[in-house]
């Protein structure tokens, strides 16, 4: 493996891992805030117990999410100094704004929420969880703005030094790719958190523990899950059309469409493929579906990869402009099929919502649905990031030109091993803790504070 491949592997694995925690943080903060709001409004103590229960899971999840996010903040400079030099003028701004606007908000108010149960009034305490949740959403906004710029650079010029230079922050923040991908990520976070909440509630309902409370949380989860999934299938398909406009290669590769077609059909799956998926045997073709997905038109034209390759060679010089087609084809299908499956499971639950506790089969399935959103999220990221290759910034800089020239293969290998080991430990301990707390009974009477060190005396000033 070359240094570029290793650096890519490192970025891909650390950010995929980080994104196991991000959607849970964003989504669970929102549903926890929702639960606490219900408590605040109704004064029904079941909601308070649920707030504390899911809040504890949120806090453990955040701990791992924060530290894995830290790594990303440094990694651009460590492994991708070529990229950092080239794009810093544009790309650094949303990252710095994320720190100033989102991280401060999220970390400060989450701590106030955790430790403030008895020190803040009920109303102010409720506000702290909403502020923390808002921090998470804003964080996603800035990161997606930065990422969307890599997919479809806007609001910049290339300066005399040959580097990208920001000319319009407004353009960066209204990038059509950004608006859709941000919504896509927020909805995915709600889906992830509600599936988690549904699955954990189902586990307790199956055991018959605290049925009234977990029946409620399961129903709330379903009410969030079904519309969020429906909406996200639409937003995702809209994002596909938008990316198809700016990154036609990404969409063509997702269908393994080598030749231009009109109208184009969508294959449910394929076998074979041979060298770089050149000769796949497509099974069950759905006529017009690809045209519809890629262009929003019944008879839309999808330009094939061969033609795009020729175009890019004219435009950018000789080179291979085709991403890994196999990965592209299957990540798209894993995402779409499992997403649809989650929707069906959600609809099933909604249909049975009045007698969830008796629907043994549904409850069993709901528990086993928990891993699905994580697979879907990963597939989605692989689809969009792999589909951009060989570019790191579409049309402006190639990935191979973006690595740090001064960093050797050995350094990358060592850091890769370090991260694998550390992240393995975090997975075992972090998820172990979450599983332990998820299986715990609801507190009969919620203690006023879940934390230690409340032995307070006089003010220190």
């Amino acid at each position, binding site marked *: 493996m070359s240094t570029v491949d290793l650096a890519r592997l490192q970025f891909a694995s650390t950010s995929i891992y980080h994104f196991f925690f991000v959607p849970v943080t964003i989504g669970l903060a929102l549903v926890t805030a929702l639960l606490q709001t219900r408590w605040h409004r109704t*004064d029904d103590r079941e909601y308070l117990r649920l707030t*504390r229960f899911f809040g504890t899971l949120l806090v*453990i999840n955040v*701990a791992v999410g*924060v*530290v894995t996010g*830290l790594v990303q*903040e*440094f990694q*651009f*400079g*460590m492994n991708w*100094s070529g990229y950092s*030099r080239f794009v*810093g*003028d544009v*790309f*650094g*701004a949303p*990252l*710095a*704004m994320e*720190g*100033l*606007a989102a*991280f401060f*908000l999220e*970390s*400060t108010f*989450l*701590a106030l929420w955790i*430790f403030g149960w*008895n*020190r803040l009034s009920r109303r102010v305490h409720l506000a702290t969880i909403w502020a923390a949740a808002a921090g998470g959403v804003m964080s996603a906004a800035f990161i997606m703005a930065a990422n969307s710029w890599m997919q479809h650079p806007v609001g910049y010029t290339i300066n005399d030094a040959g580097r990208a230079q*920001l*000319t319009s922050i407004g353009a960066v923040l209204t990038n059509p790719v950004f608006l859709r991908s941000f919504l896509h990520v927020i909805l995915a976070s709600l889906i992830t958190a509600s599936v988690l909440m549904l699955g954990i509630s189902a586990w307790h309902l199956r055991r018959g523990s605290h049925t009234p409370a977990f029946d409620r949380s399961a129903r709330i989860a379903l009410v969030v899950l079904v519309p969020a999934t429906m909406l996200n299938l639409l937003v995702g398909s809209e994002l596909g059309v938008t990316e198809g406009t700016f990154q036609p290669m990404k969409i063509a590769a997702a269908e393994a469409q080598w030749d231009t077609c009109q109208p184009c059909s969508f294959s449910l799956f394929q076998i074979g493929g041979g060298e770089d998926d050149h000769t796949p045997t497509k099974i069950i073709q759905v006529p017009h579906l690809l045209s519809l997905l890629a262009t929003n038109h019944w008879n839309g034209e999808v330009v094939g990869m061969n033609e795009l390759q020729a175009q890019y060679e004219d435009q950018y010089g000789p080179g291979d402009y085709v991403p890994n087609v196999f990965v592209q084809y299957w990540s798209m299908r894993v995402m779409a099929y499992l997403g649809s499956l989650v929707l069906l499971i959600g609809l099933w639950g909604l249909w049975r919502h009045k007698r969830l506790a008796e629907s043994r089969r549904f409850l069993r399935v709901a528990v086993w649905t928990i891993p699905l959103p994580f697979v879907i999220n990963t597939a989605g990221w692989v689809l969009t990031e792999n589909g951009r290759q060989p570019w790191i910034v579409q049309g402006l800089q190639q990935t191979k030109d973006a690595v740090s020239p*001064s*960093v050797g293969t050995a*350094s990358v290998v060592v850091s890769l091993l*370090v991260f694998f080991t*550390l992240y393995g430990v975090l997975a075992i*301990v*972090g998820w172990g*803790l979450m599983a*332990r707390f998820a299986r715990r*009974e609801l*507190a009969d*009477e919620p*203690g*006023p*504070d*879940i934390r*230690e*060190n*409340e*032995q*307070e*005396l*006089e003010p*220190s000033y």
Partner: protein
Amino acid sequence: MTLVAFWFLVLAVLWVGFFVLEGFDFGVGMLHGVIGRDEPGRRAVIGTIAPVWDGNEVWLIVAIAGTFAAFPGWYATMLSAYYPVVLVVLIGLILRGVAFEFRSHADGDRGRRVWGAALAAGSAVIPLGLGIMLGGLLGGIPIDSSQEFVGNLGDLLSPYALATGVTLTLLCCLHGAAFLSLRTTGAALHARARRAARVLAPVTAVLVLGFCIWTRVVAGGGFLLSFIELVAVLAAIAAAVLARGARNGAAFAATTVTLVAVVASILSELYPRVMVSSLGSANDLTTSNTASASYALTVMTVVLAVLLPVVLLYQGWTYHVFRRRLRGARVGGDESESGPTIPAQREEEPPAGASAGPARAPSRRDMSEAARDGGSRRSGDAHGPGSARESS
């Protein structure tokens, strides 16, 4: 002042703010096993920073992200050059970051020991690594004319860089001891925190004096200290004197000023350079040859002007909310010396099926709230051995 100079100043403020705020968190982390001799004591010690450390750490993130935005060339060269050092800092940040949470949920003594050690080691390694990096910016590393690092690990670990790392680490340790003297009242905890400060302060003062002279020499200014270095030395001496007395607040103020002045002295000697090249000053990275263009800096300035005051406001409010002093509890003789004592606060893992929520002291406010809520907010007393009683 130009925008470029202004952004160097902003980053300097962020670095200073980070070391002042997260500095005592590091100190508390390093010392928690020494000052808290048993579990309740350690919990009390960690509890002094538990609500604030994560927010304090954001100062570092913003400093790094701000460098990326304002000086991409600096960000790219610094992080790729200091690759092994940054990796160690990241290991520290990861382990320490999860240690707070994992330790508090640890099943038994072994888990608590492991995550306690991670907390202590991480708290030491982060300022050490970052200090080595900051010192190296001024001390110089081999950088070629295309702003790329061309040296090896030995170049990064130069004596001056190591001295910077050690000075900052020890200073954070002292800062943490001073902070704990201020924030604890439990007789044994308070006494041990003060003893730690008393022992550390003179050593640190000597180190700061030596470091400031060295900084001056490295910067090519001779032996005569600049104003800011003089402040650092005087504050360090003041800290050593004050640590012997009873004025904990003044001692903490002195360590704060020392940290501010030490970090500021490195950065002020550095300016307008941002990374010194040991291969000749023509290769130095400067604010002007690494900065973003003025449009990006203007955008960032507006964002900063709007957000920073708000951030300072709510971070300040957090300190106000959590302003009370903490004390350890009487277990295993940790609080046996004198003064009123209270029992251990947090109950251990409850037996299966029992209530999960650890209890807490019913403060006056709880009582009144309980009354107001019609008893809906019952105090934790009923949970038995875990509950605490407030005394004042």
